[in-house]
């Protein structure tokens, strides 16, 4: 009897202890609904591989933010025209929601008058509509997105364009979202709030990539922490974009020469060509091609990666600041390097980071 009672007690304590652990864990996790999954597709050819479809299926992800084209000035003084127009091979018999995304350079709005902006908006709208003409019936469109890192001097023009597009979409029962950067939330009173129905918070590219003291310009939570204000007051409901890419910052004599993107970190494993100087810094031992780019002896690379753990921490940080409402979490961007760097399971964990433990 005594032995039976002590066994029972141990089991009770174990279960109780586990329950305490779960309870404490759930108390530190944000109490937000899990976001709907999505991915960005940013290549010129929309041609998703089988492996990529499998990944999306495993995440129950049927929403794709698809770059349709870029807008930029033809030259310094030329008209604003589309570039890198997406070539679509629409998948047949696959239920998807596609959000057409148009990336607009800030330069497009510099010294661009109101009449010109109006014309650009008309052209943009007509072009996207034409590109959607061949869309299979299984693919739905509910929203468009404009991606522009506007500044003080271009704000008015961009907002004018967004307002025109939004009005047109409204007539079709569609919504407009725009990409939002962290500083545009913290300083919303200065930067303004674009006339859109939703904002996509681009939670990456936070630090100065050219600064030699920068550790990780893609995602640095210390830097992000300085901007985590104003979310509760922000007038647009926010979706989130998280990075799943890596790149290497190419440097010579402390000067940044460029960015190698996309970049396969495994190319740094060849010790006959590359010497690791620190956790993220590498030196070329000889002049050679590395991941498609010719680099020279003694050049240095600063590898900037995003690991699943970092994204989990990012989710925690966001969860503490975002209001509880439904939103989308999109990974930037769907490609082979995303598949290499992130397992299906790790992406699922990120997506479900806010899930309550019942």
């Amino acid at each position: 009897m005594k032995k039976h009672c002590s066994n029972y007690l141990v089991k009770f304590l174990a279960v109780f202890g586990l329950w305490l652990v779960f309870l404490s864990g759930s108390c530190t996790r944000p109490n937000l609904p899990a976001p709907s999954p999505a991915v960005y597709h940013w290549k010129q050819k929309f041609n998703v591989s089988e492996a990529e479809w499998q990944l999306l299926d495993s995440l129950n992800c049927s929403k794709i933010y698809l770059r349709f084209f870029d807008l930029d000035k033809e030259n310094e003084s030329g008209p604003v025209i589309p570039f890198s127009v997406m070539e679509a091979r629409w998948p047949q018999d696959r239920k998807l929601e596609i959000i057409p995304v148009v990336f607009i350079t800030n330069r497009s709005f510099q010294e661009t008058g109101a009449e010109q902006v109006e014309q650009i908006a008309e052209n943009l709208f007509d072009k996207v509509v034409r590109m959607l003409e061949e869309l299979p019936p299984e693919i739905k469109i509910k929203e468009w997105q404009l991606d522009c890192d506007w500044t003080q001097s271009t704000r008015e023009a961009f907002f004018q364009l967004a307002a025109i597009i939004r009005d047109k979409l409204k007539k079709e029962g569609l919504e407009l979202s725009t990409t939002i950067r962290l500083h545009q939330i913290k300083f919303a009173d200065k930067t303004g709030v674009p006339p859109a129905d939703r904002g996509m918070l681009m939670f990456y590219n936070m630090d100065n990539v050219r600064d030699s003291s920068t550790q990780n310009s893609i995602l640095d939570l210390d830097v992000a922490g300085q901007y985590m204000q104003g979310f509760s007051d922000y007038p647009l409901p926010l979706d989130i974009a998280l990075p799943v890419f890596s790149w290497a910052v190419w440097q010579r004599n402390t000067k940044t020469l460029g960015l190698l993107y996309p970049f396969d970190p495994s190319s740094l494993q060849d010790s006959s060509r590359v010497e690791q100087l620190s956790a993220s810094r590498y030196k070329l031992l000889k002049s050679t091609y590395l991941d498609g780019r010719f680099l020279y002896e003694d050049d240095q690379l600063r590898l900037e990666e995003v690991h699943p753990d970092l994204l989990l921490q990012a989710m925690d940080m966001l969860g503490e600041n975002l209001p509880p409402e439904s939103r989308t979490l999109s990974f930037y961007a769907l490609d082979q390097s995303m598949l290499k760097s992130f397992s299906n399971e790790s992406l699922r964990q990120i997506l479900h980071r806010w899930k309550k433990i019942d």
Partner: protein
Amino acid sequence: MSHSGKFYIAGKRLIKALSGMNLRFLVPLLLPLFLILPQTARNDCGPGSLYGFQGYSFLNAEVLRTTPRIGEFFLDFESMAVLETGNRQDQVVDNVTEWTLKVCENALPEDVATVIYQVPVDIMRQLRTAIQSRTIPPPSILSGNTFVNFLYRNKCEETVDYLIFAKECEPHVGPVSDPWGETSRNVPAMLELIEAGKKDFRKTKSDYIKLRYAYQLVRLAHYAGEFDLALELYDFCLPKIDQPLINDQKSLIYYWLLGHKAGALLKTGKRIEASYLYSKIFQHCPSRRQSAFKSFSIKSDEEWQELILLCRNKTEEATLYALRAHNAGSKAIEEMQRIYDLDPSHPFLDILLLREIKSLERDLLGLEFNDKKGYNRRNYGVPRAFAGDYVISMHDFVHDLWSAGKVQNPALWHLAEGYLDLLSGDFYAAEKNFREVGPKLNSEELKEQLEVFQVVLTISAFEKPTSEVEEEAYDIWKREELFREYPDFSDFLRDKLVQLYRDGGRPGKAFLARHTLDDLRMNPQEDILNDLQKVPGESERTPIERLLFRDKEGRDIRSELFDMEAVLLFQEHQLEAALRLYKKIPRPSWDAFGKFDPFRGSFVDCLSCAHSKDTADLYNRGELLEELLDLEYKARAEPVNSAVYYYRIGTALYNMTYFGHSWMAMDYFRSGSSWSRMGGDQEVFSYPGAPYGNQENMNVSRPLYYFEKARLAANDPELQARAAFMAAKCELILYYQSKDFRPPPAPNLAPDVPPAYRNHFQMIVDYYRDTEFYEQLIEECLYFRLFSGDE
């Protein structure tokens, strides 16, 4: 095809733009003007007014006349947009030139261009009908066209057939006219054209026309997305063509055709083979060089080795390294060494050499005296951190290569070594190299370049601003041809002189070398004025001094300097010293510096109100100084009337401050914006175009002092009241300038002035209520009315 092409670099375009103006007659005026007038393009009023890199360049791409139009591609590599335009223009020029040379040398190129690019296809069909008929004349719209006349007279049916075909192809292969429109092509129509074109190809006799057909067919297939077909067509057509030569070179159409083959190879995954073809285009076809560079794509060491195996000789292999040398971030010396090891006489070595020199020129030339170096550093990262070491590495490399005697143009390299010596600051070595290379130079372009470098060296080597240096500088200025062809000489020489003057303790000359007297008037500087006064009389001046010492109208500025010095002393109330200086100006000239009526009192300060027209009220500066001194004397000598005199002095001093109607008596420039920026003791405010800011005469403590003296000395309460009122105005200004100032909540409200700044108003209320002046004051001054509560 002629290989003596034109060269376009950014600098050359500028030179050409300038040479469009007839500068010859303007030069004598321009010479002093560039010294005396502010250089607005390089005005130091902030980065917002500057555009582009602010440095000097004396490298002339014409030195590479033997190598067709490589110069601009390499030397202005940053300006890809400019190059794209240039490339399109080059393609047109090359195409027209080849048509002219190959088909009809007697035709005017512009007529050939009209036929090729402008005549519509239906008109060409009418021309064919005319040729076939033998009696019908050519279409009247083409009358007078020398190319059409040739085609008609010689019955060039084959050529006209081809031109018709080419025009039928053009809508399918040209750039999209509406960038917002459909980008897809009409593939079935293009395939039909290909079939028709193949038939025409087969029946064509001329190898040159056959080559053009081949180009059209492969291009059609490429743009239709039928890449395998494009390759098949290439293999079908080329063996049937006996390659035509133009001036012993392959036709540019061959390379254009090769470009489309390469494009098709690229699309079918044969990147290495495609890259090999692109390298051949890069080497031989200037008008397609840029697109070849952009399309060249090798991604691994293994691919590179495979590519090398495709090369048929060391020159082709060396071209691969030349291509790689043009990637951003390439190490030029490393690539140039590889090119040299393979083919020491490779023409691209010369081009890369000049490119690197141009970069080092941007980094280093005139760095110690370029007043815009901060701007260049912030906006362009120039100079590069490694420039100092790199110029030495490049220098040694250049020396090794030319002295080995194997490079194609050793004289060019020897000259380059001299310039690198100059850039690294070794003027002795530069001079030696320039002296040695002179006899070796054959081309006029290189001789001119040497001459230019020697002038740059002369200027760079100036050490002190001696009269000999000034004479030499003046001799350089007189070389108007040089300044027209190399406009950077203007800034280069001026900036060097400014540095010499500054380092040599001649701040005045340094100032006038870059600015004008008007700039100095904004805030006269004692050291500058003192230095300028050291310039000797006209007969003893150097030519540069003669230029500096003239105003816009060409008059000697000596008196203006005295005027400015006197104003400085006037501002400090050193009246006697100011008058002594003023007496150095001939008295009849005193009026030229302005006439003022500061003794006119007023309730309300009105800057825009008309001045007195009564000459008795008007004083020039010299007379003002005399009058003020006289009043001081009288005030001491006649105590019974001293109040009147002190009041008069105070009135003048007040009216000559920033706040009074005669401010211009003691200041040259007044800005309304200074009002909102004043505070404390600040009297100098930043202002565009004012290198020392704009100094305003805002100190009212001296007039306040005199008004107080007047009030205390006066027996007449009316005068006391007046003096108190003027003192009150000074007090109010002091309040505005103080840290206690609080702006009113709305602009139409009077400020709430603390009692400490209302002493004199209170005094008027307490002691002068019974005066006539008090009644006037109530009438005229709203502030006082509010203060007193009286209506």
